[in-house]
């Protein structure tokens, strides 16, 4: 679709990015900066978390797992929220890049979810005395991982891209019900998992010396998300173009 056609579709605003060539240009310009920022922030965050932040009065050195665990869990929820929003944009406004974005986000979110579950188990064994319990928080996050995996599997299972996009968008939006359940599980039910420490109505319950490394790590993961998302979307668009050229070639023969 040409730029003029995109304009004619009545899409000012977000439809300006519907032109794949323009998106490629912008993504190509932003991705290196986001990658560099991610590397710098994650190195700084890990250094702060491992060497500068103090040990906890109860947990000792084990508290340092939190600097990876908590931002990973935030990203798990953030990626799914973005996935559901992109899916809604695809269903409602038929934005051509929304499906590409949604499809590119799913593996990133799945990895962050797995990372949160694994680091949580590594923390739980020494602190709680168990790797895993079926409490509301842990179980709902495991359901989130299965939603990501199911979403990715559904893309593979349906051959027609338009049909696959629609089915996947509906699955993503239905699964969004799980996001508030994860966030508030620790408030609504008795769980072994502790309640929120940072995003609470009474302000953070974590000392500033530990909060700063945590926030730097969270910013680093966000930058990583942007960088990988843009690269994956570019790859996806290249793949779509390649498939179109191949089918045109096959038709010409």
């Amino acid at each position, binding site marked *: 679709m040409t730029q003029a056609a995109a304009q004619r579709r009545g899409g000012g605003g977000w439809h300006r990015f519907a032109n794949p060539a323009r998106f490629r240009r912008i993504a190509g310009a932003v991705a290196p900066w986001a990658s560099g920022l991610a590397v710098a922030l994650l190195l700084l965050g890990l250094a702060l978390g491992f060497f500068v932040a103090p040990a906890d*009065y109860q947990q000792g050195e084990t508290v340092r797992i939190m600097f990876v665990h908590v931002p990973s869990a935030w990203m798990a929820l953030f990626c799914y929220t973005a996935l559901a929003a992109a899916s809604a944009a695809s269903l409602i406004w038929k934005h051509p890049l929304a499906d590409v974005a949604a499809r590119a986000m799913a593996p990133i979110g799945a990895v962050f979810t797995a990372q949160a579950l694994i680091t949580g188990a590594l923390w739980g064994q020494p602190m709680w005395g*168990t790797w895993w319990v079926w409490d509301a928080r842990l179980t709902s996050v495991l359901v989130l991982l299965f939603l990501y995996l199911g979403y990715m599997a559904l893309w593979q299972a349906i051959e027609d891209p338009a049909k696959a996009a629609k089915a996947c968008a509906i699955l993503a939006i239905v699964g969004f019900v799980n996001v508030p359940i994860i966030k508030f599980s620790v408030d609504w039910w008795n769980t072994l998992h502790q309640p929120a420490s940072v995003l609470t109505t009474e302000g953070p319950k974590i000392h500033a010396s530990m909060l700063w490394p945590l926030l730097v790590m969270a910013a680093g993961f966000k930058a990583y998300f942007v960088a990988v998302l843009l690269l994956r979307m570019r790859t996806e668009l290249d793949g779509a173009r390649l498939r179109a050229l191949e089918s045109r070639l096959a038709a010409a023969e």
Partner: protein
Amino acid sequence: MKRKQRRMWLLISALAGLGAVAALVLVALEDNIVFFYGPSELVAKAPAAGQRLRIGGLVAVDSVKKAEDGSVNFAVTDGNNTVPVLFRGLLPDLFREGQGVVAEGALDGAGLFLASEVLAKHDEKYMPPEVAEALREQGQWKGEGG
């Protein structure tokens, strides 16, 4: 624009309906979702002796008594009610008086909770030892440990 708006409202109402269904299911299943009962809930529910369940609360201060044979007596409290617990086995690192704990087991006939597994429950506070010490000296906070 008309069709886009219709699709948007369809999506919003579908999501609202789905949310309502999920809420009803979760409320109906609440007894299965809670990981443990507090001491007051246990008193209110009065489960039969031998029924397996988990109780959670704070380990009452000055209640921990370790016997020669490796068994531990302690009490779980929520400030209003207290349940005595007997446990034989390894306690987790974070098991301390005044700190959270979750025990799995069953009540015997006399109201003693026979635990087969004890897990420590960490709270949401994170701070360096010096800060914990300073808070305790100021009398603002009465936590254990450090």
